[in-house]
């Protein structure tokens, strides 16, 4: 009796140790396949594994169609993996939750009937905070993303970049454990995109939020990320390799270290694109 219970305790303790030693985010052999038209199955990602530490800005980079958005969708809980396991803080992800804030690519996730401020206050409001409390919190994040003075504007009255700022503020105001960003600047013009990248980097340096950022832009990944994960070409994409971005301070395209990272990431991507489009990898772009 006594012996058995102490054995249980040991097992529990071992379990706890395993849990604690797990990375913050842990995707283990995740496969996602869809049944398409005429019953054909297509595999978006197969045997995808990824570990992410708390406070990391992880950029997931890959050619289009490699399944990077599928990875984000599963992590958000919008879709469940066909096989494999996704753990956040050691707990399996079973559906969407306020743990994981999402910034979507398009602006169709904003609520056009709410002002910028009320869009940002949506999460706190749903959690049962009073309207005043929620708005106070929303103001904080409105200022954080540089939208001071735009609080009573409706999304239709704001530019694309400002709408993405609302999305970021809305996700942050909910204080999630991590932020998932699905090519959030993909639809913006080049100048706005560059500004947004700098602002997001500033926010990350200030808050050290855990961020998974999906992109197909190598520069964007290097400017923003603390690590870059490159995916293989789809269908059935998996992680090809991880490139750490150990650049200090302002990230500058003229920095030789930057160029080096760019070259290695670019080569990895080119190999994958070549695989799909059957262009010899040796030919420079």
């Amino acid at each position: 009796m006594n012996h058995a219970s102490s054995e249980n305790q040991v097992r529990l303790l071992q379990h706890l140790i395993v849990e604690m030693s797990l990375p913050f985010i842990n995707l283990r052999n995740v496969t996602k396949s869809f049944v398409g038209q005429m019953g054909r199955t297509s595999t978006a990602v197969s045997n995808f594994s990824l570990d992410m530490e708390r406070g990391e800005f992880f950029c997931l980079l890959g050619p289009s169609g490699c399944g990077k958005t599928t990875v984000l969708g599963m992590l958000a809980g919008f879709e469940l993996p066909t096989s494999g396991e996704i753990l956040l803080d050691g707990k399996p992800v079973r559906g969407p939750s306020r743990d994981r804030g999402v910034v979507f690519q398009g602006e169709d996730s904003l609520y056009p009937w709410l002002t910028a401020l009320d869009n940002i206050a949506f999460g706190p409001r749903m959690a049962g905070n009073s309207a005043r409390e929620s708005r106070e919190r929303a103001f904080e994040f409105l200022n954080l993303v540089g939208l001071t003075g735009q609080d009573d504007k409706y999304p239709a009255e704001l530019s694309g970049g400002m709408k993405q700022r609302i999305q970021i503020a809305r996700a942050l105001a909910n204080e999630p454990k991590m932020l998932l960003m699905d090519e959030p600047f993909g639809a913006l013009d080049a100048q706005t995109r560059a500004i947004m990248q700098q602002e997001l980097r500033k926010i990350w340096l200030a808050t050290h939020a855990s961020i998974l950022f999906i992109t197909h832009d190598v520069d964007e990944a290097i400017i923003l990320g603390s690590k870059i994960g490159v995916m293989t070409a789809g269908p059935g994409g998996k992680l090809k390799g991880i490139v750490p971005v150990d650049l200090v301070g302002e990230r500058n395209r003229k920095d030789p270290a930057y160029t080096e990272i760019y070259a290695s990431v670019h080569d990895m991507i080119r190999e994958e694109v070549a695989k799909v489009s059957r262009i010899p990898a040796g030919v420079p772009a």
Partner: protein
Amino acid sequence: MTLAHQPSVSPLPAANVSSGFRRALRNVGSIIPHLVGFAALFLAWHIASTYLVRSVLFPAPMAVLSKAIKLAADGSLFEHIAVSLRRIVIGFFAGSAIGVPIGLAIGSFPLVRKLLEPWTEFLRFIPSVAMITIAVIWFGIGEESKIFLIIYTTVFIVILNTAAGVNAIAPNKVRAAQVLGANRWQIFAYVGLPATVPFILTGMRLAMANSFTTIVAAEMISANEGLGVMLWNGRMYMLVDEIFVSLVCLGLLGFGADRLFRWGNFRFARRFSPTA
């Protein structure tokens, strides 16, 4: 209060007045094409009836106007209009009030859709005009049969548009609400409902036009008062100018109702459909 405040305060109202005046001017300017359009319509009618057709069966606008003034003076015109409008308003709002929740339920729950689709898809193809005889047999020739018919003609359009609106909600709006911690009920109340408002309003606007068709047909067949009765009596006693008074009233009322609806939409519901 202090002198220092005065210069900064006084220019403001002046600027407001002038900008308000300018806005009023712009509003007047924007309705001028509308007025010209109306004038052209009546001018064409005038030319056709006095120079081209010249028949007692096609009265000129001025003859119709003088008849309308006569009917207005003895009060009967306003009585007919009031009776018809009252039926439309009651039936239209009752029909919308019934249609919106049913449409929301159909759009939100596949099971409800399957259960109710046979009803909506069957009944919406039976025109309200075809229901007049049975409505009169069931409810008599009083108000009940007319209001029933207006509800009938309103309800299906509102249901279909509302359900379509629920299905047209961008998935990312719902997903965003999910990751922001909203539960199913909150998603319905704070995302689904407001996102559907433009579709509900479109359905109601279409239903308004149907209500006019239906009320005239119903009143022509069985009623003691209303614009449809004016039309029918005009035919019976060959009062062509009275028929035209009724027709013009219908056109103006419909136009006015639609404008009012659009104005209300713009004034109170614009934020729900920013693209409109």
